[in-house]
């Protein structure tokens, strides 16, 4: 498809013209951008040792939860935010049930690997063998959700997707033998690999390797999504998001590209679920509550919908903020601040939305679209 003419033109001057870190970054020559990217990646790899940095280190790391575990949490939240960003940010399809795909990825892994699974006699696979199958199932689920919702927009789509996630959770709670409700699946195997000392790399005591694994997956996802975004697929998503009808009369096969967005979003969400199951070794229906979807969506919007850097930051923050609050007690009632996480979180989101409604690292196009919608609501 890359031979077609609608490959996005270079828009250095128009959209990266001014302002902010993003503007600065866009103006730099390629080698500066490469260096900045490499440095950022190295810093990310070194994050598990952040606590050793004098002065700032202790402020960054979490107290109530083991820091590497908190980092791993961040990594799958970032994955989810990246995936949801494809659906909501790029294609403009409001999906409130994104946790459904995370759940399918995790359940798929569990069903194929856990001793508690009905399928264990037939499968009993390793984590690595189960992962691609689980991902294929998740992608298929994305298409299954996408197909009947193609004609829906905005609020209607949101409601259906919300129902989708709830259906999965309810099926999980009410099939005691198949998806095992609260009892869940135990003994989900960890990812493979042995260190030089003969111990498995992915053990139960140290979450650092899982974080690195997550980070690796994130990098691959970023590269993949970036390529898509710059291709004809990305241009089609952009057109659909900005004006679906106009896109259609330009000759965009809107149904196909919306399905693509759902499938790719589902795939990335499923990746998060597969990683999650592999790290935890245990999942049950309590994990996949609706709040989870809302939280990830809040992360994407807060970070800057339609912009990958924004989605990454937002995804990391929604996981980091509550984890950072753990183990700190408030001065009046001496409760763990973690208990107030949603309240604190709500305040943080409101403040950000008041000060920066387009998100922390906004997409320039998105800002333009928002302005345009305002005009529609209140023409001059």
């Amino acid at each position, binding site marked *: 498809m890359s031979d077609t003419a*609608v490959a996005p033109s270079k*828009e250095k001057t*128009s*959209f990266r013209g001014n302002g902010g870190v993003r503007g600065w970054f866009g103006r730099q020559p390629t080698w500066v951008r490469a260096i900045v990217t490499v440095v950022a990646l190295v810093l990310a790899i070194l994050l598990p040792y952040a606590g050793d940095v004098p002065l700032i280190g202790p402020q960054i790391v979490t107290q109530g939860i083991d820091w590497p575990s908190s980092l791993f949490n961040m990594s799958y939240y970032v994955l989810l935010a990246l995936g949801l960003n494809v659906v909501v940010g790029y294609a403009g399809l409001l999906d409130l049930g994104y946790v459904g795909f995370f759940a399918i990825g995790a359940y798929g892994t569990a069903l194929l690997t856990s001793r508690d699974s009905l399928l264990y006699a037939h499968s009993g696979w390793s984590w690595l063998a189960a992962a691609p199958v689980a991902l294929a199932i998740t992608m298929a689920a994305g298409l299954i959700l996408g197909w009947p919702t193609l004609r829906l927009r905005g609020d209607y789509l949101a409601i259906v997707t919300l129902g989708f996630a709830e259906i999965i959770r309810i099926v999980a709670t009410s099939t005691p033998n198949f998806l095992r409700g609260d009892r869940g699946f135990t003994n989900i195997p960890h990812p493979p690999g042995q260190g030089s000392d003969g111990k498995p790399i992915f053990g139960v005591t140290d979450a650092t390797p899982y974080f690195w694994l997550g980070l690796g997956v994130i990098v691959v996802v970023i590269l993949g999504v970036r390529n898509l975004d710059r291709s004809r697929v990305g241009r089609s998503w952009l057109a659909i998001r900005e004006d679906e009808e106009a896109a259609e009369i330009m000759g*965009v096969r809107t149904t196909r590209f919306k399905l693509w967005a759902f499938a790719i979003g589902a795939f990335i969400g499923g990746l998060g679920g597969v990683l999650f199951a592999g790290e935890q070794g245990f999942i049950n229906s309590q994990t996949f509550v609706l709040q989870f979807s809302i939280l990830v969506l809040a992360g994407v919007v807060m970070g800057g919908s339609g912009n990958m850097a924004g989605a990454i930051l937002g995804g990391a923050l929604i996981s980091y903020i509550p984890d950072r609050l753990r183990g700190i007690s408030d001065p009046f009632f001496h409760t763990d601040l973690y208990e107030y996480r949603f309240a604190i979180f709500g305040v943080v989101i409101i403040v950000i939305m008041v000060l920066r409604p387009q998100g922390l690292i906004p997409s320039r196009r998105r800002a*333009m679209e928002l302005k345009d919608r305002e005009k529609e609501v209140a023409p001059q």
Partner: protein
Amino acid sequence: MLLELDNVSLAYGRIQALHGISLNVAQGEIVALIGANGAGKSTTMRAISGLRPVSEGSIRFDGQDISKLRADLRVVRGVSQSPEGRGIFPGMSVRENLEMGAYTRKNRAEISEDLERVFTLFPRMKEREKQSGGTLSGGEQQMLAVGRALMSRPKLLLLDEPSMGLAPMLIQQIFDIIVEINEQGTTVLLVEQNAQQALSRAHRAYVLETGRIVKEGTGAELLHDPAVKDAYLGVA
């Protein structure tokens, strides 16, 4: 005939918007569709471009029945629409909007040729090339929408209210350009509330009332038709 609508009906849910419309457009013509708000003008356009499925009747384009064809494939066949209310992409630059118009085409040389042609027709678009669509004025957005529709190198150009919301000067200008586009070989079907302009520029026209065609004739005939004058031209 390039385009033939035969007894086309279309409904939005239970609301019947078109009641058996028949019209045709010959190669090289400018045909206008005039009528009041809600007469079904835009709906007719949507039926032709494939945004809404017809419930009855047939649409033939270039000799083939396209009534069941997907909208994107109709673009490939040579139908291109400039939508009502402009429908430009606000976050894309003017150039990107125009490139979007050439979405179904692959020949880069031809596309840049057409881009130059649009820039010649609308010099303003050249000046605004890198500006995002949302920052343009109403008139400029209209030009962009027409220019974008031309970028698919259509056989038939559908223009939905090209003069809507424009100052009188600009209306003149946009109609001049429509005539010019037509003289360069593109067939035009346009929908207008500005009946005066539409009728004086079109070769033929149809008058639409509540989803039915009530009159047809050459532009000049209708311009002097007492009933049309009374209802649409605002002169006694």
